[in-house]
């Protein structure tokens, strides 16, 4: 993985010193809150309902064991013994004290981590496929490009005060596991007729109160031109993005109001100016960065799972293999997803002790590599198939062996009204009830892959728009209500879910989900037809009717 060079190290250390001084001046009263707020936000420090919240960047969701151990140490020493992994592949600590934050940032810097650009109207952490550099279906490992984008976008002087925050996601595989079409810019690897790899560029996707699926602005941008092309999009957005209304300030609104053709024209004209200049990405620079992401020293192996035999001899382990492993590009290896969705637990949370266990496993079994997925799970990307059982047993011992990845209890859930200052309704207890309701392995097997996503307000951090079933918390006259959507999809066939009807109270949500699931099970053509397939075939009417009758 990428290691800081001297510039990175000095820059991050400098920022820690600067913020330490700013915190001291705030506490002494020299800085007012109005002066201090933008400074703390630039360092990822928010104020939530109960305390400050520190959001730490995990660049493109990649970490090593030393870094995860440091996060465990921070959770234990400065927080309440846990951290919350987010859909931006970051981690949030919910209880830090202001006077501890400089020390926390200093500890993070010692393992090449920081919280810069995790807030504010700048380019945020670039996200990618959690199986990058490991997946069998990958055209190219997107991490070197993600790293180059990180370097380009970090404190970019022109793009530090954009009209609004800006999110970029990148995938090197045709199966989109990074929800790229719900980002301001989404990049998907492509191969041209000569076998040359470049990037299809999508623009204007996003969730929030105006959800949009990104549109393709260019089908193929070569590696060497990618930064220049991104710079061109950002320049057009910086110039024309609406600063008069923060609800209309994202690039998706610009695409919507101006039209894709106009935006493309503006970008192309900018691109003509920038192309071939300092942003040209020479092959040797790409190779230099690529070297940091060289594949680990895999051993030759032809080990494979005999799932049919395992189902008989050890059905629980078979279930783990079936759901929590992903096919690796290297024979004899697999990627393991560690579910942070125990039945009835808090989605995305990991205790300090669990982080230590995962760090140990990464070191022992995954070439010291770890990933955070946007679905709020952790990943050991390179595990020898012969080692999977040992990993499974260790995970089970730490309460991390839930074999539910991709299933109904593997929900994306935002913190909601239990923590978030912007929330309208709670998300976590609703998720816990659904998880308990559908917790049995047999029930989940019967239902198959089904993605539920829950947000506590229209900002949609819980990606409810993209859930096969989405749940949005709203508030009406002091009561938490939940709107249910169906038909969302975060993958390559991205789609926004449709609202089925009026909001319902929290106690009714598990029953409502049960009714939707029952309709699906009755209507599906067979176990191989998933929820979205059935919905597409039979339409929304039976689902709506199940919840609301003929209202």
């Amino acid at each position: 993985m990428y290691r800081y060079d001297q510039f990175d190290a000095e820059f991050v250390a400098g920022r820690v010193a600067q913020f330490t001084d700013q915190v001291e001046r705030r506490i002494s009263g020299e800085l007012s809150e109005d002066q201090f707020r933008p400074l703390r936000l630039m360092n990822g420090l928010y104020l939530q309902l109960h305390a400050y919240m520190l959001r730490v960047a995990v660049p493109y969701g990649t970490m090593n064991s030393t870094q995860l151990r440091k996060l465990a140490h921070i959770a234990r020493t400065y927080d309440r013994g846990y951290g919350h992994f987010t859909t931006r592949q970051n981690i949030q600590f919910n209880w830090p004290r202001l006077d501890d934050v400089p020390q926390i940032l200093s500890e993070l810097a010692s393992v090449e981590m920081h919280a810069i650009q995790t807030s504010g109207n700048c380019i945020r952490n670039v996200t990618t496929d959690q199986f990058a550099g490991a997946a069998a279906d990958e055209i190219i490992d997107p991490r070197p490009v993600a790293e180059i984008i990180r370097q380009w976008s970090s404190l970019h002087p022109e793009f530090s005060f954009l009209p609004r925050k800006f999110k970029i996601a990148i995938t090197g595989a045709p199966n989109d596991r990074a929800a790229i079409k719900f980002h301001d810019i989404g990049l998907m690897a492509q191969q041209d007729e000569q076998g040359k790899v470049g990037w299809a560029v999508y623009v204007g996707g996003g969730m929030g109160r105006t959800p949009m699926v990104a549109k393709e602005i260019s089908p193929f941008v070569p590696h060497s031109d990618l930064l220049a092309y991104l710079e061109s999009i950002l320049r057009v957005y910086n110039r024309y993005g609406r600063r008069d209304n923060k609800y209309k300030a994202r690039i998706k609104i610009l695409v919507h109001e101006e039209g894709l053709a106009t935006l493309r024209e503006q970008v192309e004209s900018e691109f003509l100016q920038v192309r071939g200049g300092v942003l040209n990405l020479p092959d040797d620079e790409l190779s230099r960065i690529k070297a940091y992401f060289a594949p680990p020293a895999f051993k030759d192996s032809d080990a494979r799972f005999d799932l049919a035999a395992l189902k008989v001899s050890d059905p629980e382990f078979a279930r783990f293999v079936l759901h929590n492993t992903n096919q690796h590009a290297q024979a004899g290896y697999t990627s393991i997803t560690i579910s942070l969705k125990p039945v009835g637990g808090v989605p995305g949370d990991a205790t300090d002790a669990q982080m230590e266990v995962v760090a140990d496993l990464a070191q022992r079994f995954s070439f010291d590599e770890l990933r955070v997925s946007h679905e709020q799970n952790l990943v050991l990307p390179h595990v020898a198939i012969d080692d999977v059982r040992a990993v499974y047993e260790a995970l089970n011992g730490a309460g991390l062996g839930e074999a539910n990845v991709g299933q109904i209890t593997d929900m994306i859930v935002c913190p909601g009204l239990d923590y978030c200052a912007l929330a309208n309704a709670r998300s976590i207890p609703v998720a816990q009830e659904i998880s308990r309701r559908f917790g049995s392995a047999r029930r989940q097997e019967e239902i198959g892959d089904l993605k539920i996503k829950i947000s506590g307000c229209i900002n949609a951090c819980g990606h409810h728009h993209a859930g096969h079933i989405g749940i949005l918390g709203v508030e009406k006259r002091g009561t938490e209500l939940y709107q249910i959507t169906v038909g969302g999809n975060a993958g390559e066939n991205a789609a926004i879910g449709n609202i089925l009807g009026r909001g319902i109270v929290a106690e009714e949500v598990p029953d409502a989900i049960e009714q939707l699931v029952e309709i699906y099970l009755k209507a599906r053509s067979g176990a191989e037809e998933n929820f979205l397939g059935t919905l597409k075939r039979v339409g929304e009417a039976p689902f709506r009717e199940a919840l609301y009758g003929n209202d």
Partner: protein
Amino acid sequence: MEIVTANELISGATVYFLTEGCWGADIDRARVFQSEENAERDRVIKRANASGFLISVERETVRVAKGRVLANRLRERIRAEGPTAPRHRPQKPDIHNAVEFSHVSL
């Protein structure tokens, strides 16, 4: 009826302006302002904003029942009692600041 609430600067903890004239974490001891006390309430808010150790100063509507102060909004009740799932106790404020503030007469 309203109370005045804020977050304490160092801990970020939820605090309330108390009947004793200082700030603390216990909502049941919060000073409840009737509508005819709006001027006094506004003075508290002004002083809180100027104090330097309180942030996000807000007023909240409440009712009083059996000696307890109950916020009307669920958001505020969660602020007072901590996250509900799983339960976490609220953050502890740095009390010495609150005590110091109590010496400032209204």
